[in-house]
């Protein structure tokens, strides 16, 4: 294994060992505190344009498990761990993690003091970084790192074709795909007939299928970059009941005239506590988002239904017209659950 270096936009350099594909890359550096589920994380379209550092030190223990992929490939730009298991062990293991990363041409480094790295992100906020094979950098290089922005995120991960799935259910929903994860899609298939649409679909086309409701999926990037999509959504509001998750939740908020902001360092992990303001119950949710909807909401239009227990930021909205959105995932396979009642509420809305 050759030496590699992680160069942060503030000039700090971490020495590491390269164990993935050997190429240099610049991306936004975020951390995940999840202790299990690296297969899901690597293939989650939500990490488009980012490099992820795992705070848990032992990664790759169960090897490569194809069944657990959230999409057909790895979407993040680079992967940073403390230690990657050389001898994985699991009854479903089909190979090691290292080979999977190399096949997907994803740079990955190990041997990093990942905790020190997480602390830097926590204290300074999200920053960009570069995986490099030389320890020295020029000022131009640093400028390039600083100047990096995640762009065209949704465009890069959405699907291009319309897929109609008759799941033998009573209701049919139009699912606009901003980068949905396989497990979330599978869960929706368990509830509805699904018409999966590309992100650049027009409002007319959506309505032309005459769905019972519309679902806006999760996805990567800054919600504000999707100006056209936000316009499309605003013309769908009040036409059909809408349910939205993650990026979809942020987009729906913008379409309703609300505002979003970037979190200092994102909510990434499977242990985010969210309080249902209506019932007082707290749910442990799985999340991956770098932006949030701000509190400037007029009560005539919407109420904040869910809040993060730790930082009180908005985690879900109930609009006066009945539309619902959550910042967290309401799915069954990846994260802690019990929030599936939201789907029940949406189904009511479609009656």
């Amino acid at each position: 294994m050759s030496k590699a270096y992680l160069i942060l936009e503030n000039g700090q350099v971490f020495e590491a060992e390269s164990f993935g594909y050997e190429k240099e890359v610049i991306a936004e550096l975020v951390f995940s505190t999840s202790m299990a589920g690296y297969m899901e994380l690597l293939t989650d379209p939500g990490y488009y344009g980012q490099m992820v550092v795992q705070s848990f030190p032992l990664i790759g223990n169960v090897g490569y498990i194809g069944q657990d992929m959230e999409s057909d490939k790895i979407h993040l730009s680079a992967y940073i761990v403390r230690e990657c298991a050389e001898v994985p062990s699991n009854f479903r293991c089909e190979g090691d993690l290292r080979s999977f990363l190399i096949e997907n041409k994803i740079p990955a480094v190990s041997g990093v003091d990942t905790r020190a790295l997480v602390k830097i992100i926590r204290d300074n906020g999200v920053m960009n970084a570069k995986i490099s094979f030389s320890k020295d950098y020029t000022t131009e290089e640093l400028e390039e790192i600083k100047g990096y922005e995640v762009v065209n995120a949704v465009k890069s991960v959405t699907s291009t074709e319309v897929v109609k799935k008759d799941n033998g259910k009573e209701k049919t929903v139009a699912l606009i795909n901003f980068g949905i994860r396989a497990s979330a899609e599978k869960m929706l298939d368990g509830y509805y007939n699904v018409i999966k649409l590309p992100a650049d679909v027009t409002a007319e086309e959506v309505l032309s299928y005459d769905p019972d409701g519309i679902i806006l999926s999760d996805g990567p990037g800054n919600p504000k970059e999707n100006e056209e999509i936000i316009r499309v959504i605003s013309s769908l509001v009040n036409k059909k009941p809408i349910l939205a998750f993650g990026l979809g939740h942020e987009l729906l908020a913008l379409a309703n005239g609300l505002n979003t902001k970037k979190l200092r360092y994102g909510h990434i992990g499977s242990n985010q506590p969210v309080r249902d303001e209506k019932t007082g119950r707290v749910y442990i949710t799985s999340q991956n988002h770098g932006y949030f909807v701000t509190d400037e909401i007029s009560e005539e239009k919407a109420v904040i239904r869910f809040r993060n227990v730790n930082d009180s930021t908005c985690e879900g909205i109930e609009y006066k017209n009945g539309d619902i959105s959550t910042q967290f995932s309401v799915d069954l396979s990846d994260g802690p659950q019990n929030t599936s009642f939201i789907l029940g509420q949406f189904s009511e809305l479609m009656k």
Partner: protein
Amino acid sequence: MPLNKNIKKTLVIGSGPIIIGQGAEFDYAGTQACKVLKEEGIEVVLINSNPATIMTDNMIADKIYIEPITVKTVKRIIEKEKPDSVLSTLGGQNALTLCMQLAKDGFLQEHNVKILGADPVTIDKAEDRQMFKDTMESINQPCIPSLVVTDVESAVSFANEIGYPVIVRPAFTLGGSGGGMAADENELRSIALIGIRTSPINQVLIEKSVAGWKEIEFEVIRDSKGNSITVCSMENVDPVGIHTGDSIVVAPAVTLASKEYQMLRNSAMAIVDALKVEGGCNVQFALDPESFNYAVIEVNPRVSRSSALASKATGYPIAKVAAKIAIGYNLDEIKNAVTGTTYACFEPAVDYIVVKFPKWPFDKFVYAKRKLGTQMKATGEVMAIGQSFEEALLKAVRGAEISHDTMNTSVFDELSNSQLIEKINATDDERIFAVYEALKRGYTIEELHYLTLIDEYFLAKLKNLIDFEETLRTQELTDELYIKGKKMGYLDSTIEKISKQKILSPIKAAYKTVDTCAAEFEANTPYFYSAYETDNEAEAFKENKADKEKQTVIVFGSGPIRVGQGIEFDYASVHCVWALKELGYDVVIMNNNPETVSTDFDTADRLYFEPVTPEDAMNVINTEKPYGVVVQFGGQTSIKLTKALSENGINILGTSADGIDMAEDRERFDALLEELDIARPAGHTVMNTEEALKAAEMLGYPVLMRPSYVLGGQNMIIAYDASDIVEYMKIILSHNIENPVLIDKYLMGKEIEVDAICDGENILIPGIMEHVERAGIHSGDSIAVYPAWSLDEKMTDYIVHCSKQLAVSLGTKGLVNIQYVVYQGKLYVIEVNPRASRTVPYMSKVTGIPMVKLAVRAMLGEKVTDMGYGTGLYRNSEYIAVKVPVFSFEKLQDLDTMLGPEMKSTGEVLGIAKTREEAIYKGLVGRGCKMNKDGGVMFTVKDADKPEIAGVAAKFAKMGFTLYATEGTAEVLKNAGLDVNVVAKIHEGKIPDTENTASLIESGKLSYILSTSSKGRIPTRDSVIIRRKAIERSVPCLTAIDTADAVAECLLAGYTQDNTTLVDVSTLNK
């Protein structure tokens, strides 16, 4: 719901003495709980028979009853104190079971006492085997095929139906006590019989064995609103089949894919919901390594050993949160004490790996069966935190104090390959080391997985260590290789030893924080572990948050709980920390025991969770740069550091390294005694059997033998004749011991014990203790009475005089413990320990003298004369206090229960009263003796005891007990005019119409047995069989004539559980 304002006065039930399966973790949990209640303004009434606990301290509870934890006593306390509620989930299984009994017979309702923490329905659903099974079926959670039975025949017929092997699990017993795995019908018959008898409701579960599946545990917390979170997952390195208390455990689980993890987590959540748990709960699963099949093994709706481990592993204070939930709070209303900013309603994320390694008593109990199974045998455990499994494992192993600094075990060198495989298949406490040896010999990971079913992931990690050691041996020790070794957990000394090369530029450890959130939020917890990185968070913490006006002092803790070094030393360490804080120091503690109060992150100003070894200590010292360090409160574990630290120029507060050496080095100590003209039993030093026999001949039998390299009674015996010497020398010499063996004249006199505080000039003796049993039984196993009752004024003065001379000559600054024998009117010194002893907590509580605090002040230079308690012997308390040892014999098969110079007890209870008889009575009841007032008593004593036996037997006869005795003993009793039934010895077989000793015990006619034959140790001997049988049938078996006499005396005095005085010890110290 916020705090329930109706709760004003709560009874907290503690867990009682430390026994195998119920350790110090309940003192930790109970202390946290009591603190929570007090913080909320609730009056706390506590019952706990264990005086060596922090929770029985004045500052923890308002009313403290160190009384037997029995239904009767608890009822009396409720009647007296009239609490409005009782907290039952923090005192382990005993407290929970007891609370259930009180609830079920309507007593609690009658007295308007509300149960906090768990209601009887929840407990029943979790603990009653059938109800549990039904509940699991109702929520579609898979259980293992099983059936509850109450007789052996039903067990056999069910097992024949589901197939062998099967596991027998008795209902309502601790740590699976009395259970086991049966491979065929024969085994099942004997195990089921024991199990049915052990269960208080005579009920066992026969269950299909899933041995070999992964054993995964979850710690879950749920509040009354239904919010629930999992604190931590844990994975046993040893698959199902070995009790989790005897398994090497990692946290979090590391061999599960997210699918499996979520599946089990969801199941755990569904279970606590179905049971409506309010508080902490432990759920254990078996997971098929080859599919998604799993089964729920068991659920404990209370805090437990596992929850203590999970708390320390994550930093999440489970007991504290459970207590808050019990009094009405919800998870989202409780702040996360670690970050101070986030809430308790979240799931901890960790960014390290934790390894727990058990501490077994087999080094002391050489004849006990070492095989591990469903019955827990470990007395304690250590925990280690690392950034890799290898690092955490090596830290755990070296911290377990089992003479290992790597996974290599030199004695295995002599085993052939087939012997080695046999050793692995024996599944004993050394299995992991045998596996390591096999990997070293070239067996593959697959082969060892096949043999042990240990996951390949862990085996590969062991292989990494082997490969690294091979590289060390064969390559140049570069900086890079050295750092790699440090990150894998090796000590500098080990790296140099293996590589035979000098480390050119040694590096020191940096420290990372345990913060519950993997650095996601800034944490305020001063809880650290070492890592070989550059970012040193402990240094930054000290720089930014510690009070720079204060001088730093490091206190070294006592490591794992083991026979001979129990919770008392954690008690002393914690009090030392508190005293230093009070005196204005910035206090650091270093320890590696997850069960204790000392490793709670808010005990000291900073906690280093590290193995207590010289190099690990020097690393902490390097970061902390303390003014001084304290070694005298952590037992042998910390005392052992003295030499190394002192050679490194570290300021050891209190008694100097030289003073400690003088007390431990026999020659120097003898010279000192000579100089002071204080007598000690005559003795010799020998190297082989021949010399030993000669020396014994010269001294005259009996003689006391022990190896010179250990203190505290390890491997000590009394030899009554030449054959004992031969047997014992064989055992010692087989350990390749190069140190000499000490042979002393054994004086069967009164044993006297003194703890004192010394400032180098004067001493304060809080009290003098006298043992019920004459010398020959280890002081930890004797019933100790304060104050001594049989010393005249002259002897008392002489003891005070000698104690002062000894303490002052050794330059003691702090605590000193001295043991004496009074034999034929003359005083002899047995040993002097310039450190805290196991009697310190109990003496502190009874005399009202805060011994550790005063010792700390003396250590720092204050004069005893300025402390306000005077000098010399302190005035006697108005109460008599008796420390009664408690054993874990039920858990240790084949161990002879005969007491001798080697300590066997695992814990102790206190009896406190106005008279000695009443105090002993309370102590014995607290220990668990039924104290029957009728029935039979069987005597079988050795020749040396025969002259005294008639007097004791007569007392029992006078009370109407039926006497039984073996032939020789019966002869003596008959000659004394007593009516006695002769019983045949076991090997004499059963003569028609008469009993032999074994069948008599089986018959249930006996209330007490006195068996003093010392021809013990070897499990097949008659006397050992009798004593083991007594344990199986729960008949109190006394092994010293003095103990039997004391039992007779307190029975004669007419005490019952109804007429003893309940003493609130909190009033004694005021």
